[in-house]
């Protein structure tokens, strides 16, 4: 029953490799009919190389840092040398009259009820200068006179929790405080000293009864470090304010969102603001907002009437463009002998510096079945730069604790970690991912903890991801068909390296019976319909269904045009392989360009926006919604630990993931590989180091801030499930964040299996490994 006007339609459903069934959904008349599984499709589910790969490797791709406009000025920012200071006076006079300087701008506000403005971290912007060259702008910064009164400060999370620690905020009532993610600025959560909390979402049942019923309890404190986004292209903006409005080029993961912010903050009509992001060199959550630097560039452009370019230096980038908050998580889990969980208690303290939202995610309360959960999450304010969301915010920190605790519980219960998870994890998808992964990885060869011969020991471990399937409802595109056959897809959605441009071409090509390279992409520009942000693993899920709907509408229009000529019903036509033909008589056919030539006008257009998931959403809030099914993912890691040098080498990682209907396996595998490498880097190397006595970041460069390199890269393998749910026109969801969440925990569990000791603190450096091993040998009789 596939009724064109009908409301009830059957969709493929289930995990493809286990055999599919069908699910009936009620869909609106303007929704396209269901696609069959990938095996029946021509472009979808095929590995298509990314559309911009050649441009990127040949240097043709144009990033924001490459934008040059006539008469463009260069901005530089004066930043706080003090982690905490009052600013009694800020004198911009000498800088304003320096050679080549066109405008100076104070970036500090003095609160109405205070004598002085307050600086709260090293690197906090104080003032900006726009000049004819960057050298002149930087020269002028030295002429700015600031009268500081340094104050007591604290940059360490645990020190900041002390009762006598210097307070970052006296109260939260009047301050403009940035947010690093959830739980955000919920009202009514008290602030004591620097500790704000607890946020209790996720709590349920009776925790005391839960632990009373437990036969086995594990209890440990885990600590995770601050990680910086380390985007290869620094945060950058070129702003051009002119009579007609405002044009902005920005390295951003949300062009439409930045436009909305600009329109709001500068009191401009949405239609008079344009934001463009062509190539974007990394974002990972740190480039979704306009932020102070963006406002500064726009303001300087408005002041001077000239375009203004503001690009962060590497040290500015590392110090003040966001970071993944640190955490200290006390996690207790109680279980019965059969493995069933009776209680989970998480007391999580995180610091996003001066920002809110340093939580350890919902993974501890949401991944496993447990009737009694106590989730108490606290923000600890420190005199450090504000954190912001970063790839799997919260859950990446949380997984490091939870997944080690579950492994420890399994050991105490004398159960295999996979069997325990089979018992307590309600997800049928992850169960299948564990089964496939264990077989492929050779899990049965895993030995007892520490069993290998000295000194280089091998170990295997695994861990799981949990992430909501996010959808942006304010997500739209337009499809244009020209009389010469050209097809263009237009949306402000930006391709920040995730490959959404490639899957958009595939989706449209599939619907129109063309090849992906025949579809012209016009994206990353708010002149086109507003696309979704590239964060929260939601881009593909949000923009591919409307792209398919618009393509389907265009196809219907073309069929109607042809049907008139051929005197058939439009329903009798089909498009495939560059031809349009009569479904009953394949000899009766016309090429795509010839068909387009029958159009009445030079160009026709279709517009579509993201409709609701066919089975509804779990929740929605504003422009965003959360789909019914979570995103899973299970990762297996094998490590070698040199017990004399403390060096951990990750030998191989196997990742088994799901993202609904996979549109482009090549790109998905590549994105998962990126998530794993970022996760290993987090596990072993990366750490923002602040000096306790000066508040300065000691490693704001890529020599001392250590990112995983090619020589550290293990063998990577990805198994991708086809998980059909019949929820949208493409049934596709994201994978960026699940790919990162489990990795550090999987590596930590593998290290435990290798050496028989738990690594409770990230990153797992040689120093920490040697320290843990020394403790273990001291404990031996």
């Amino acid at each position: 029953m596939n009724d064109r006007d009908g409301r009830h339609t059957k969709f493929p459903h289930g995990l493809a490799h286990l055999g599919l069934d069908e699910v009936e959904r009620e869909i609106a008349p303007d929704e396209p009919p269901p696609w069959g599984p990938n095996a029946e499709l021509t472009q979808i589910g095929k590995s298509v190389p990314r559309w911009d790969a050649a441009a990127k490797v040949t240097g043709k791709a144009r990033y924001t840092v490459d934008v040059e406009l006539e008469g463009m000025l260069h901005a530089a920012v004066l930043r706080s040398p003090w982690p905490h200071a009052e600013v009694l006076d800020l004198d911009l006079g000498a800088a304003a009259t320096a050679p080549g300087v066109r405008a100076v701008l104070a970036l500090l506000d003095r609160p109405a009820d205070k004598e002085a403005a307050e600086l709260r971290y090293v690197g906090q912007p104080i003032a900006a200068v726009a000049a004819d060259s960057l050298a002149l702008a930087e020269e002028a910064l030295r002429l700015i006179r600031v009268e500081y009164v340094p104050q007591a400060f604290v940059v360490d999370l645990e020190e900041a929790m002390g009762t006598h620690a210097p307070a970052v905020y006296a109260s939260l009532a009047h301050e403009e405080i940035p947010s690093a993610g959830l739980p955000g600025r919920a009202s009514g959560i008290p602030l004591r000293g620097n500790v704000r909390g607890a946020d209790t979402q996720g709590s349920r049942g009776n925790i005391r009864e839960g632990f009373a019923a437990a036969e086995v309890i594990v209890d440990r404190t885990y600590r995770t470090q601050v990680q910086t986004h380390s985007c290869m292209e620094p945060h950058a903006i070129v702003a051009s304010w002119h009579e007609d409005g405002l044009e902005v080029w920005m390295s951003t993961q949300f062009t439409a969102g930045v436009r909305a912010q600009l329109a709001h903050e500068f009191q401009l009509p949405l239609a008079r603001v344009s934001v463009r992001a062509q190539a974007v060199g990394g974002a990972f959550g740190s480039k979704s907002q306009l932020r102070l630097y963006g406002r500064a560039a726009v303001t300087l452009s408005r002041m001077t009437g000239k375009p203004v370019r503001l690009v962060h230096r590497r040290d500015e980038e590392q110090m003040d463009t966001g970071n993944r908050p640190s955490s200290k998580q006390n996690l207790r889990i109680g279980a019965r002998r059969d493995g069933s969980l009776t209680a989970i208690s998480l007391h999580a303290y995180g610091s996003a510096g001066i920002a809110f939202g340093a939580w350890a995610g919902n993974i501890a309360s949401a991944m496993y079945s447990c009737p009694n959960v106590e989730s108490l999450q606290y923000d600890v304010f420190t005199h450090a730069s504000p954190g912001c969301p970063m790839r799997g915010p919260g859950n990446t920190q949380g997984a490091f604790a939870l997944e080690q605790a579950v492994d420890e519980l399994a050991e105490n219960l004398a159960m295999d970690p996979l069997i325990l998870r089979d018992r307590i994890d309600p997800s049928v998808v992850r169960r299948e991912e564990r089964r496939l992964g264990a077989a492929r990885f050779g899990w049965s060869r895993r030995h007892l903890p520490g069993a290998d011969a000295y000194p280089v020991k091998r170990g295997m471990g695994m861990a799981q991801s949990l992430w909501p399937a996010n959808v942006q409802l304010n997500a739209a595109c337009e499809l244009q068909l020209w009389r010469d056959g050209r097809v263009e897809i237009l949306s402000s959605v930006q391709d920040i390296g995730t490959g959404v441009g490639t899957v958009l071409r595939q989706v449209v090509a599939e619907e129109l019976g063309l090849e992906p390279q025949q579809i012209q992409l016009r994206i990353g520009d708010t002149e086109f319909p507003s696309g979704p942000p590239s964060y929260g693993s939601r881009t593909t899920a949000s923009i591919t269904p409307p792209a398919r709907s618009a393509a389907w509408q265009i196809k219907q229009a073309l069929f109607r045009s042809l049907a008139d000529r051929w005197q058939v019903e439009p329903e009798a036509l089909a498009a495939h392989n560059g031809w349009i033909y009569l479904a009953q008589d394949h000899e009766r056919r016309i090429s795509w360009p010839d068909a387009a030539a029958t159009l009445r006008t030079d160009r026709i257009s279709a517009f579509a926006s993201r409709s609701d998931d066919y089975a509804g959403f779990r929740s929605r809030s504003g422009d965003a919604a959360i789909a019914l099914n979570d995103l899973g993912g299970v990762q297996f890691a094998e490590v070698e630990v040199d017990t004399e040098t403390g060096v951990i080498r990750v030998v191989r990682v196997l990742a088994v993931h799901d993202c609904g209907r996979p549109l482009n396996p090549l790109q998905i595998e590549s994105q998962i590989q990126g998530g794993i490498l970022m996760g290993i880097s987090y596990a072993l190397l990366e750490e923002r180091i602040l000096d306790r006595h000066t508040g300065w970041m000691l490693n704001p460069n890529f020599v001392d801030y250590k990112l995983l390199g090619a020589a550290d890269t293990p063998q990577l393998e990805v198994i991708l499930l086809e998980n059909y749910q019949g929820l949208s026109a493409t049934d596709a969801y994201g994978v960026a964040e699940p790919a990162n969440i489990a990795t550090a925990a999987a590596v930590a569990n593998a290290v435990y299996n290798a050496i028989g000791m738990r690594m409770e603190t990230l990153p797992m450096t040689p120093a920490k490994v040697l320290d843990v091993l020394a403790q273990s040998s001291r404990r031996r009789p």
Partner: protein
Amino acid sequence: MEPFAWRPARTVAEVAEATHTAAAAMLTLQPRPSEGEAVVVKAGGVDLLDLMKEGLLLPRTLLDISLLEELKGISALEDGTLRIGALTTLGEIAASPLIRRRYAALAEAAGSAASPQIRNRATLGGNLLQRPRCWYLRSSAHHCLRKGGGHCFAFSGDHRYHAVLANHGCAIVHPSSLATPLLAFRAELEILSSGGRSHRLPLEDFFVLPEADLHRENILKSGELLAAVHLPPQASSRHSSYLEVSERAAFDWPLAAAAVNLQMDTEGRCQYARVALGAVAPIPWRAVQTEVLLEGEILDAGRVASAAKAGLQGATPLPHNTYKLPLAVALIRRAVLAAAQLADEEGGAH
């Protein structure tokens, strides 16, 4: 970065006549040095550019010596000495068949330093003369002792990568990874003074401990030029090895390094031992006690392990770098076993 002039030198004599300031002497010249003081010799420019970008070094003129052929290349002298010009790149040293055969530890150290791109630019001279990587030294916001300030930030701050030996007053580690094997080979330095005179100096006497002078890492004077490194003849019965450990597998500074040069007789007795450590002290460090416990002895795993342990005698680790002791001991032990061509049968003391 400040504006500067670029002056290519065409002859060694021209450099010898020029007034220039040793990089070792530059950091304490505050404020910006005068014209006369502010000529700095530039070879590969790797560390120099870093220092200039960080605002630590403010030369007015770079005297570029990178075109001087006399300072390049590897040549065997008549007496069996190997002369390596100061402008020889790390990449050339790592690839040299002569060095790989006779001075394997040096080739290893050169080949594992930095990244391939840097090894193709970085020179032997620059590697020996580069400034320390202490992040307080490298931060213009921290006016530390070595830069003429009144305070060492590392002792009370984050010193995870700092020295565990001879670290009184200042806990930098010497950054040259080539100096470690050069010390094990008893290398000598050929230094040109103004007026074109040259003299030779044991590498061991070249470096300066903080207790002797807080502001410099070596005794090269302004106006002097490091021209070459001489390696004494190495009998074919001698074997060397170099091992280092870093957090990243490539493009990272070692946490510790060990270079060993051994001569064994046919009965397995050690006739000669020279053991040097890197990244544990403000200068390339000789593990003299290890040498004493090896020389004249039949080497087995147990003896090597106890000799290795003795190499860190007198260490004064700081609270956050005690891990360097077992790490360095393990590296010495492994490097000795490798140079003695003994199997690592039983691991360490466990």
